[in-house]
């Protein structure tokens, strides 16, 4: 119901100074309790666990890092709980995935945090997507008829070790900028990470090499960077369009496609329902695999390296079983 309220001019009345006094007393009460003095360690908050894992690699014991979203949670739909504000108000650096992944929940948290350091555009706000190779950047007309499409490109870019390296390098640079005395420390940590990652990458590449060119279906389009790096082909999605739940007609089409293309593997993120993928697997004689898109998706997966170890072990086993 809408009412139109006309402006009214009032005579100048006596201001009630007691009211003002009450308000200013309240304000000064707030002011008394200023946040703790800056701790020695840099306080880093990240939107997702993957960014936290990469920050921990280069930040070492010079930073405290915590992620808002959990690794087994759909990062598109995180609740903007006030408890996150307790972390954000103390943060020196906020690392976001960007490309509108967190659009539904992070902006109000940033606004409410009362922390000038991490506001969008401030020095303590880091959009990690700027460092990474981004796929699926739409070039035609973008409308919501395409579902919950990301106009700036696919935000699930961290599942490529090369992007992991680039992001880590970017984070190391930012940490050095915020904490110049330890700049060399962060660079050393990055170099060490780079070497360990290159060694691991050789191992992962070798493990995945026999399955180069294999076809898979994923629930959501969260796998393109992994697929590109390891030479897999994603031929379809359980979702008819990003963010739209499976429909019977699309499921039938997908079953037909998988049969034609002899694709046997359906990869599902841990936060999606397995009912439709399992019925597709039954129809196609395929296999459903719950892969991890993020660090922390399972308890034992706590580092960026373990994420790839876990997923590659899962995939190679599944590829062998669906030979």
């Amino acid at each position: 119901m809408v009412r139109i309220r006309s402006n009214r001019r009032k005579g100048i009345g006596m201001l009630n100074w007691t009211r003002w006094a009450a308000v200013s007393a309240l304000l000064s009460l707030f002011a008394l309790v200023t946040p703790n003095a800056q701790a020695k360690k840099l306080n880093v908050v990240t939107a997702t666990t993957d960014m936290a894992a990469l920050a921990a690699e280069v930040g070492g014991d010079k930073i405290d890092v915590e992620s808002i979203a959990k690794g087994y949670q759909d990062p598109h739909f995180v609740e903007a709980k006030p408890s996150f504000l307790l972390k954000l108000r103390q943060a020196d650096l906020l690392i976001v995935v960007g490309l509108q992944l967190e659009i539904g929940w992070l902006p109000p948290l940033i606004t409410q945090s009362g922390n000038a350091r991490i506001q969008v555009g401030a020095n303590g706000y880091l959009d990690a997507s700027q460092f990474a190779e981004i796929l699926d950047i739409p070039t035609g007309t973008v409308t919501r008829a395409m579902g919950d499409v990301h106009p700036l490109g696919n935000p699930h870019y961290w599942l490529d070790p090369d992007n992991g390296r680039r992001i880590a390098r970017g984070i190391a640079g930012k940490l050095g900028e915020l904490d110049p005395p330890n700049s060399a420390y962060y660079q050393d940590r990055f170099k060490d990470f780079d070497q360990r990652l290159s060694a691991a990458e050789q191992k992962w590449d070798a493990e995945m090499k026999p399955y180069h060119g294999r076809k898979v279906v994923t629930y959501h389009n969260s796998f393109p960077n992994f697929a590109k790096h390891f030479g897999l082909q994603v031929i379809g999605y359980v979702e008819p369009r990003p963010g739209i739940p499976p429909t019977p007609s699309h499921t039938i089409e997908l079953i037909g496609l998988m049969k034609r293309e002899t694709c046997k593997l359906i990869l599902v993120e841990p936060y999606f329902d397995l009912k439709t993928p399992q019925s597709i697997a039954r129809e196609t004689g395929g296999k459903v695999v719950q892969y991890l898109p993020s660090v922390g998706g399972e308890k034992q997966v706590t580092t960026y390296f373990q994420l790839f170890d876990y997923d590659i072990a899962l995939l190679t086993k599944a590829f062998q079983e669906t030979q």
Partner: protein
Amino acid sequence: MNAKLVSAVVVCFMAAQTFAQQPATPAPAANSDSAMEQRMRELEDRVISLEGQIRMLKAAQAPPAAQPAPTQAAAPSGGEVAPPTQAPAPETQAQAAALTQEPNLGGAGGSAAKALNPDISVIGDFIGALGGNSQQNTVSLQPIPAFQMHESELGLQSIIDPYARGDFFISFGEEGVNLEEGYITFTALPAGFVAKVGKMRSVFGKVNMMHNHVLPWVERPLVTNNLVAGEDGINDAGFSVERILPAPKGIFLEGTAQLFRGDSGDVFHSSERSDVSTVEHLRGYKDITESTNLDLGISYARGHNDQGSAFLTHLYGVDATLRWKPLRRSIYHSFVGRSEFIWSDRQQLPFNQKSFGYYASADYQLARRWFLGGRFDHSDRSRNDALTDKGGSVVLTYWPSEFSQLRGQYRFTRYANNIDANELFVQLIFSLGAHGAHPF
């Protein structure tokens, strides 16, 4: 523009690469494969870094959706043109080419003049009603006709400068246009303060803060209609200051103090310039488990009423919300139980009226797109505390996507004079454009 500069650098770079493919300068045969591979990787990294910089610059120029895009504009560093040695991987070239093509964002992209436009959204709220309600015109309840384009809310939101953001919500009803909210939020104040100045919905309780399209019901509870100025609620021009307060570990405590002109529907009325109203709210929140949390609040509002400057209305409120949402299945199941208790103390002649009202509601998400809820209402009337209205509702909501909802609500109301009303409402909410996320 910086973007053009970076684009030019990339184009030159790519051209140089292509040129290098000509056999004019044969590569020294001594290069081992691994050195070449290393070189290629470095070049690829540089291209990707430049792509990222272009993306950031573009995003800074044309915020494409609800969140004003990151303005982390990395300045193009000089000397980025690498000496031509080896052509980068063809897909990298294709990506760079794709980047130089402007994505067409539903016709909004392109022109530099539009680049700094705020995020624009429109939310339509259509309501249909069945059943009789002979009371609706005699009490403060909003009459709901058979069909109504109840509200079209235009949202304009943007970051203003490094210190503030602005939000405007202009609501077009069937009778006219109203500035529902329009305020600036200062986000970079010292000592953790956040301040708002403008016209805004006050923080009295929970429902008062909510826009129509985020309510879990078609209409608002009886207690809101009877005691807290109905649909518009306590919504006034003034300023607001909030801050997170120190509390034991794990507890979120936030205090908000607001000072308004003193005009809010039939609750507050300012006859003189000094007749300002205030609202104070204290919010406590705790995660009980990862999936469950409890949100408690107490509110106080004080203002002058339509009897004149000498007559005050005091409102006291307590709100409690219990939420459950298992993180692994957060898109499929959730529960919200909520209640607000409100006491009104209204000075009027011949006697002051002390009224009380509450609602209790529960909403359960049955599946990804289905929500079932119910609400119980009970409220005295603010001008005559001897009259009490009661009611209850059952609500079923279907979400075709994040951007539309179809809702049906059956409402039974027993008004104070023992008149019963049975009504069925159908609501369709649809959202266009980039509407900013609402606070939790």
